């Protein structure tokens, strides 16, 4: 076998019935995992379904399981993940598979809203824009989480999500923590109610897979720890 050819196993089918198919893909310089999947779709099997859009790590569409690890495939070089010139590519974990590498992202986004990851504004367009001081401790906390691209890598990495389908998951909880610290957001009570419920932040076991695998190097685990502290403070009657 020449090392100019990569052996690629791709999971086909849906949540109901799936199997792996082997493909041989020519190796190129600076080839990404997404390039490999695209090559298969364009040259070997046009029925292969997968998602991508920006190809530069901004849109969060192309995340897949690569050798069992969730990754943004457009920014992952194939040379970094090959084992014996082989790679296994599968749809994201913890989400229903529609077809091949395409998952149904609805549960992920529904939980985003369930965690009150929406803007709670009180001002109108006639009010002056609230001044934001980048140096306050709360703004530093909020800034730490705003670069989330909704790729669902953390959601796929989390074993707590696997075990508890009601758990809101790292991304949604991190957004709740960001809004809780945002001076422009007035949803404190709604957010703390949403994240202290059955599927809330206290389900988190701090395994840290979200933080380990986040492609933007965000830290959802620490954000969730922040929510744990705030909900506990409220429970004990401090810091409503």
């Amino acid at each position: 076998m020449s090392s100019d050819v990569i052996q690629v196993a791709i999971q086909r089918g849906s949540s109901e019935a799936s199997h792996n198919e082997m493909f041989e893909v020519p190796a190129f310089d600076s080839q990404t995992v997404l390039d490999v999947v695209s090559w298969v779709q364009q040259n070997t099997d046009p029925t292969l379904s997968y998602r991508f859009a920006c190809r530069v790590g901004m849109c969060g569409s192309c995340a897949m399981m690569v050798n069992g690890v969730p990754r943004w495939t457009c920014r992952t070089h194939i040379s970094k993940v090959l084992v014996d010139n082989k790679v296994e590519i599968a749809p994201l974990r913890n989400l229903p598979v529609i077809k091949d590498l395409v998952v149904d992202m609805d549960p992920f986004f529904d939980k985003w809203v369930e965690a009150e990851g929406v803007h709670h504004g009180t001002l109108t367009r006639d009010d002056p824009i609230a001044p934001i001081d980048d140096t306050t401790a709360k703004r530093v906390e909020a800034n730490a989480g705003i670069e989330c691209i909704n790729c669902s890598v953390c959601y796929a990495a989390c074993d707590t999500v696997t075990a508890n389908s009601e758990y809101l998951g790292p991304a949604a909880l991190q957004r709740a923590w960001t809004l809780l610290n945002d001076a422009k957001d007035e949803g404190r009570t709604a957010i703390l109610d949403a994240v202290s419920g059955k599927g809330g932040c206290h389900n988190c076991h701090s395994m840290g897979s979200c933080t380990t695998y986040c492609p933007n190097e965000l830290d959802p685990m620490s954000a969730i720890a922040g929510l744990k502290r705030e909900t506990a403070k409220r429970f004990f009657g401090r810091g409503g």
Partner: protein
Amino acid sequence: MGGDIRMSRFAHIKGRAHPLWIAYILHRISGLALALFLPLHFWVLAMAMTDPSKLDAFLGMTESVVVKVAEFGLVFLLAVHMFGGLRLMAMEWLPWSPPQKTLAATAAAASFLIATLFFLKAV
């Protein structure tokens, strides 16, 4: 081309394992093992009331190497679980930066080491 060549479940878990995840698993397994040990422990202690001669015979067994190794395992489990719990509480309840936590953990470990050495010299 066909063929169903799939990574095993174990390979998937191994692929995703990282230090924080391993710390979580160690904490969980040590907790479960201690939960299994405790009823046995209380049962043996209860012999002091119910059947002292049986307790003495049981305590005689602690001289054997197998039991000594088991005791080592027990103390190890306790230590893993205690420090795992302290780690978790520090991680979740102290809003410190990672370097601050590393410094605090180093200071605590060094103090513990010195105090243990002092204690071992005393006994």
